[in-house]
């Protein structure tokens, strides 16, 4: 590995981590799309900032552009408050307009400005090591490493300082204002940090892929845990892994690094989406199927419980009475028999003692529907899952 390669990976990992932290809170606050809006809407800010500073990595430009990001949020909220359009439409209207203004600003000044829309939108990580920070003639490493490093450092220190406040205002805005933590300040603080991160990162990974870096790790982590600390840790892990793996994939394909980082994030999300132990698609579908069978079983047992007469409990009669398809009826009957809930004698189904207690318990639960009844029931249900 040559030194630019190491530097690119280092920058990618730092950018990814800096995006992942605000991303977690955006996802939890259901504001993930604000990152999309900000990342597009900062374009005019960047262009104007570039006119002033002539340097894409200047802190002034970052602040100016980040201000545009916050203005976007304020504008979106203002339109939402007028009630003229639904909330998502407000986002969808504001950012394309601001983005268009940015594109036109660039196009009108194309001759004087060394900046093009492709670069802003897509970024190019491979060039990052060539823009170096020179202090007193000495080479201090790539500029973007310093910029993103400081942003990451600020984000982490703010996270550690205000963790409690962020947590409470994210999950319970009412409680938060009651105990004197203003959710409004937290909201705009988070928005400012997100804007600054997006602006700092667009140079390296481009405006749209910033969105991937913010949302994807957090969404993936959210499928695996419901603990905020674990979620942040997992997001950081995913972001770093995909930054490094994405770099090597791009190296192998000779393609855009940011694109391949986003693709890696997508693959990781897909795997987790399918296979996550509790929230994954496969386990959700499996659980839904189990629940369906359980409901059928209980319906079946309740039905048996209601009918004393043998005629009503004859297998053929039951099938037409409950009106299930053959396969389903067979599954439910087998399941009930296997667990000693029913016994079949001369094609007449009757409840065993165990079945009777279970049915009465279920009935009790259905009638009362009290929470404390659920816990012991859960254990009973587990019987059938084996």
């Amino acid at each position, binding site marked *: 590995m040559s030194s630019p390669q190491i530097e690119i990976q280092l920058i990618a990992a730092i950018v990814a981590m800096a995006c992942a932290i605000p991303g977690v809170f955006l996802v939890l606050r259901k504001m993930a799309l604000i990152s999309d809006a900000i990342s597009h809407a900062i374009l005019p800010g960047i262009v104007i900032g570039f006119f002033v500073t002539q340097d894409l990595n200047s802190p002034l430009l970052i602040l100016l552009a980040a201000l545009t990001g916050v203005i976007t949020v304020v504008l979106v909220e203002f339109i939402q408050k007028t009630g003229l359009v639904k909330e998502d439409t407000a986002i*969808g209207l504001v950012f394309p307009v601001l983005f268009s203004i940015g594109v036109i600003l660039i196009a009108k000044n194309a001759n004087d400005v060394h900046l093009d829309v492709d670069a802003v939108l897509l970024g190019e990580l491979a060039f990052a090591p060539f823009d170096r920070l020179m202090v007193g003639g000495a080479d201090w490493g790539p500029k973007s490493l310093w910029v993103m490093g400081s942003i990451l450092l600020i984000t982490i220190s703010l996270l550690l300082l205000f963790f409690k406040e962020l947590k409470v205002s994210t999950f319970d805005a009412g409680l938060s204002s009651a105990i004197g933590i203003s959710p409004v300040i937290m909201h705009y603080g988070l928005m400012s940090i997100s804007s600054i991160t997006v602006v700092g990162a667009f140079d390296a990974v481009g405006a749209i*892929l910033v969105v991937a870096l913010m949302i994807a790790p957090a969404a993936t982590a959210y499928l695996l845990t419901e603990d905020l600390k674990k979620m942040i840790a997992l997001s950081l892990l995913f972001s770093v892994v995909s930054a490094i793996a994405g770099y090597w994939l791009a190296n192998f*394909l000779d393609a*855009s690094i940011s694109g391949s980082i*986003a693709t890696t994030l997508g693959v990781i999300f897909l795997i987790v*989406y399918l296979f996550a132990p509790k929230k994954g*698609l496969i386990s*959700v579908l499996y659980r839904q199927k189990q629940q369906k069978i359980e409901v059928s079983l209980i319906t079946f047992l309740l039905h048996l419980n209601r009918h004393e007469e043998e005629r009503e409990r004859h297998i053929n009669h039951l099938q037409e009475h409950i009106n299930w398809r053959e396969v389903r009826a067979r599954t439910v009957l087998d399941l009930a028999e296997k667990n000693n809930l029913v016994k079949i004698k001369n094609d007449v189904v009757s409840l065993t003692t165990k079945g009777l207690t279970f049915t009465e318990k279920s009935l009790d639960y259905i009638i009362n529907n009290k929470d404390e009844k659920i816990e012991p029931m859960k254990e009973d249900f587990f019987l059938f899952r084996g």
Partner: protein
Amino acid sequence: MSINEYFNLLWSDYTLRTITLGTAVLGAICGMLGSFAVLRKQSLLGDAISHAALPGIALAFLITGAKDSVILLLGALVSGLVGTFWIRGITSKTHLKSDTALGLILSIFFGFGMLLLTFIQKLPNANQAGLDKYLFGQAATLVESDVKLMVIVTGISLFVMLLFWKEFKILLFDADYTKTLGFNTKFIDVLITFLIVLAIVLGLQTVGVVLMSAILLAPAAAARQWTNNLGTMVLLAAVFGAFSGVFGTAISASQNNLSTGPVIVLVAGVFVLFSFIFSPKRGLLFREIRFRKNRTDLKLMKTLQFMYGIAQDHENISHPHAIRILNNFHGFTKSSLKKLENEGWIAIHGQQWAMTPKGFKQAQEMYNQKTVNE
């Protein structure tokens, strides 16, 4: 070229006519179908779909090697649909919310598309000069066959929309009721979504993946301000969309270095801004005027009520009183007294006011009405 020249050239210049017709038709179909997207709270779905279409274009090119826009758009359609249904899968089967799902699919598909595009660029026999235009769109690349395709697709969607008008409408406003009536809501839902995806894909070549969502939303959002009737809204949105397309093309053609997509978006944005402010029923301007008027009316009534309280204590209701016994707290100003006098509710003589029988009655009735309401 000035705008006037543009409109003169429009009738003689073939390319200009093709492009203008293309953007106008595009604006119309997007406005039409965008109305449904806006009303179904799926505004940002358009954004996600347009980004999600990018890998489809690249893959279609990789597989077939063709630059024919129909094949590329077919690829875009497939990948846009995959994105849409994945978003639904995420929101319905996991606890992730729709904003997360939209942002996730949008950025990941776009990233994957970029990966493929840069990969194609580096291929030895890369003949990919046409693929970049899907990022920001280039109306200038529209040829007659593209416009024909647009017209055909618009015609078909219009036909389908009219055919299923009743179903679309009822699903839009009361999904549960639609289900109880026995309509196949899933089918109608998929049909609307499919049409929206189709409109987006159609616009990619002209305005590009990044700005496509605005063309979908802006005309509909503007039209929404002027009417509460779905049919009128769809029609208005189509008109706004078509005008945005024509004016956008005109402005960008009359200036150097202006790509059409952003200009169309800005023109549509102006339509929205104008509608937000000046729409007579919902607009901000008239709403503010109404607020102010209500407020002064209320103040006037309050003053009258206070005068009534004083006048009640006297046998002669028209007994004159000094103006200074009214205080500011009760909303009395010179102009409000003047207004009360103009209404004929009080009479003013120098520094004194006296209630007229008409004013007394007015105040009395107002009071009665209040008790009735309570």
